């Protein structure tokens, strides 16, 4: 995970997996967040808890440019301010009602969320494009061991024997979320192959984790 003294960036999801007007749960080192994309396409991240009754905002819904809680429909802007309390339609919500928000950067098809205030931008992927994400029931060390390479400064792991496939792992508690990247020039057959390579690698990683446990 690219980090400096002021903060770090987590690659929480692929752009393609967050369509317009949807919300999903995601995780950074700072905890659970609600990751959402407005109708117009802007990605935002907030604390995964509505301050009204503590409901997870990642269970909510997106309308227009606001994220709403599924419990009572309280709505929040990308900046985190409460913009609507349906039980009191004529009330302008006080500015004190807000959710904490995180900085989001969307680059090369990956959504990055900041914990803290990292000084640098998230790394660029160069000639790589994201293919898919998968979750492994194992830590990053197991993935590095099975892939046969350590993560580089940008957090990327090369897969032995398949140098055109790269893994971008990020820890989620006991699990690891892995984004699978592939060289842009590769055709459809290689993309299918890369997906299978990643799945096979996950099976070996999880078997290894189980043995270790």
């Amino acid at each position, binding site marked *: 995970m690219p980090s400096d003294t002021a903060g770090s960036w987590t690659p929480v999801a692929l752009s393609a997996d967050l369509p317009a007007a949807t919300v999903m749960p995601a995780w950074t080192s700072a905890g659970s967040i609600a990751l959402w994309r407005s109708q117009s396409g802007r990605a935002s991240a907030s604390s*995964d*808890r509505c*301050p*009204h*009754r*503590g*409901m*997870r905002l990642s*269970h909510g819904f997106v309308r227009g440019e606001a994220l709403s*809680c*599924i*419990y*009572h*429909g309280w709505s929040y802007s990308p900046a985190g301010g409460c913009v609507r*309390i*349906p*039980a*009191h*339609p004529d*009330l302008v919500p006080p500015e004190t*009602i807000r959710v904490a928000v995180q900085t989001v950067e969307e680059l090369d098809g990956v959504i990055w969320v900041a914990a803290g205030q990292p000084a640098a931008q998230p790394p660029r992927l160069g000639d790589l494009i994201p293919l898919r994400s998968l979750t492994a029931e194992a830590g990053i060390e197991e993935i590095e061991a099975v892939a046969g390479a350590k993560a580089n400064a940008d957090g990327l792991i090369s897969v032995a024997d398949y140098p055109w496939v790269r893994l971008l792992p990020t820890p989620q508690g006991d699990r690891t979320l892995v984004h699978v990247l592939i060289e842009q020039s590769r055709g459809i057959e290689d993309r299918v192959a890369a997906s299978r390579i990643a799945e096979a690698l996950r099976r070996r990683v999880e078997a290894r984790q189980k043995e270790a446990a």
Partner: protein
Amino acid sequence: MMKAGAMIDEWYPVGLFSRLTETGNKTALMGEPIEVARAQDGSARVTSGNGRKLPVRVRYGHVWSSLGNPVKELFAIPEADQPGRRFVDVGVVRVRCSPLRAVENFLDIAHFPFVHTDILGAEPHTEVENYKVEIREDEDEVWATQVKFYQPQAAKSATGGITTEYMYRVPAPTCSVLYKTCPPRPGEWDVITLFVQPLAEDLCDVWPWMALFDDETPMTDLIHFQQMIFLQDRSILENQIPALLPLDPGMEIPTRADLTSVAYRRWLKRHNYTYGAQLVAQ
């Protein structure tokens, strides 16, 4: 057990009387294993894990018990003795949440359009008008009255949208009684209750029970309707943070629509009813 506080001496539902067996049913009350059985003479018997005989009442379709020594009799529901009502044992819904959160959700109407969409509420009818809330000192109960809400299908017997009037009572820390406009019989109130059995601080069995004026709807449909509503609530209740109900201000933000919940929390705190509650904002 220390955490049970004043709630130790309260009555709790532990099962349906109609479903008792002589073999007995193993369940739990506030973290302690208990067994609920039908004795040979047909009465209900509740024993704790170490074989201690616990106090028993059979009322409102359910068996009630307590780990402590209840000083108060089980609360009265006069409508349970009113002729012409149908009594519905809805059964049980297990919810991984604080028993107090389950009651608070039952007292809330503002969630109807979002959680019980097109049944108990629907946008754009989201406004909660002012209503009255009080802690009735003589009865020592929380009451909310003059609660009104537009409902697309207020009950199984309702055929269209109506503005329903509600009254809520909290006669015990994990029980609430709801009085609701009765579509087939104006002037009377349907009674819908929420009896919550605290299994642990973050786990409960919810036993809804009803006393309705409705001779038409098949029993199965009445049960399915209530179970559907409570399953919708469960998806909320299992995803609130923190799991325990925060009794101190600061952790959550109430509005005017939440005055029943505010009074409920204040009443819980006043009585040291804190099993399933969180006292200090974290």
